[in-house]
């Protein structure tokens, strides 16, 4: 494998990996927000003003 092919491979892997990190990171962030909101709603239901 020549240098060009190795670099092409590395950049392709980087593009795919970064895409997945962004997408899964966003999904995880949404999951955390959802969980926090469910907890807040449960707390609010237990202690109504």
């Amino acid at each position, binding site marked *: 494998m020549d*240098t*060009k*092919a190795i*670099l*092409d*491979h590395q*950049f*392709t892997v*980087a*593009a*795919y990996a*970064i*895409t997945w990190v*962004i*997408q899964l990171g*966003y*999904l995880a962030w*949404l999951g955390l*927000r*959802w969980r926090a*909101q469910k907890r*807040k*709603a449960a707390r*609010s239901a237990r202690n*109504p*003003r």
Partner: protein
Amino acid sequence: MKKFAIGLYVAITAVLMAWGFYQAIYVAPDEQTMHEVQRIFYYHVPSAMIAFLFFAISLAGSICFLALRRSHPERAQASDAWALAGAEVGVVFCTVVLITGPLWGHRVWWGGGDWGHGTWWTWDPRLTTTLVLWLIYVSYLLLRRFAAGPQVQALAAVLNIFGALDVPIVYMSNRWWRGAHPGPVFGGGPDSGIHDPAMMHAFCWNIAAWLAWGLLLLALRYHIERQQQSFAAQQAQEAIEA
């Protein structure tokens, strides 16, 4: 039943993602001049198309919010939730576009000589208008996150409508102006299009996969926003009663 439908949808999305990845990496042939790095195209272009779709959903949500906010407040709140969800998921996909594009360009836009490194960024019309689009929608999200008061939703909706005007400019930019960005994949004249059937299949599968994934994120974000709205309304009601 609802849980089963959601589970089924998630399972179909996961299969589509895996199949799209397999098609892009193992089935589609190497492009003749760019070779392996051209495979970035299978994630870059579908992400751009889906970002446009979600910005359009966001625009529709903002228009509906402005139209319904006095006559049908509850429907307006739902429209606003769609607007926010569309903008946020659109920004995520647009971020992917703005990162994968320069990774491809760095390998392909090389200055000559040995196959070294090219440029990460040029102020090409397509790149510049896409960056402006991303900045507009990030400012929309920051406005939604940090501004307070009864007019924030209406102001954000107006910003969204003006921001969406950039979408057709981005789309047409590589037709209207010459630049370093490749020409349109579809509808750009006799030379445009994907001529290899295996490449076309990989491209279409990845559009389907990323669309399914994006709709999943959109639905989840919408659901969270509706919960947030309902919680805020409940708190406001309790404050009035207290």
